């Protein structure tokens, strides 16, 4: 049988398990300089630097799209369709641009909510109407 000599590990030679909280996820990976080792079930959280804070928010390690984080730069051309636009709650400023291929509201009866300036096209008599007075 061969002779075997085994080196005995001294405490300073081995990694002890750390009781320290694991570091946050960062933007530069690192080996660390600590002299103790992470337990295998340690948990990291997303660090503040993990998001650029312009579009994504990091609140206590929980990611979300930042309020007003989606700007014009983030919206793809033609991404906004009719289904995404709720009924207007303010006047829409056309800024001198054309409403292309627009169809006047088709109705067989006058709108139930008259507003001065409201247009509709009578689908029965084919006449165009505009409200000039909304008072009862």
């Amino acid at each position, binding site marked *: 049988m061969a002779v075997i000599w085994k*080196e*005995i590990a001294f405490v300073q030679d*081995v990694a002890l398990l750390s009781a320290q909280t694991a570091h946050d996820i*960062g933007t530069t990976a690192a080996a660390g300089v600590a002299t103790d*080792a*992470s337990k*295998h079930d340690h948990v990291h959280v997303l660090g503040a630097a993990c998001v650029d804070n312009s579009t994504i928010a990091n609140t206590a390690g929980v990611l979300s799209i930042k309020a007003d984080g989606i700007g014009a730069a983030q919206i793809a051309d033609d*991404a906004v369709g009719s289904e*995404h636009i709720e009924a207007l*709650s303010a006047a829409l400023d056309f800024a001198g641009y054309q409403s292309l291929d627009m169809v006047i509201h088709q109705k067989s009866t006058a709108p139930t909510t008259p507003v001065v300036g409201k247009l509709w096209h009578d689908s029965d008599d084919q006449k165009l109407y505009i409200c000039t007075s909304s008072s009862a």
Partner: protein
Amino acid sequence: MADTWKEVAFVDDVASLSEYTAHDIGTEAAAGEAVDASRHDHVHILGSGTVDGTSIELNANALRVVADGVTEANIHDDAVGSEHIEALSANLDFAGQEAQEMVVHQATIGSPPTGVVGKWFQDSATKKLYVCTAKS
């Protein structure tokens, strides 16, 4: 008092502390195959596979929404309100759809909007409808 025998660890039975940079956060958890242990202050970064790159990307290892990353599929129905729509910078193509419940721009013939052929407004005093037919 009972006799107590403690097993002494040999060097090759225990983990030493690693000098290697920690692996990136991935999409599949793994125990790993290394024979050394992470120091407790090691730092991970988010791996490129943890974001899809089409809507969220890593910029200098920080998350952000991609330019043009918000597409039709990302926008909830009725999410876009008047407050989100700036004054138009191009013609709006109704593609034959109706402008429902639309109210014509209210102004006065004494102080009309900037003239553009085809622009119309209703005189808020006389209630007459005007359309621009020539721009000086």
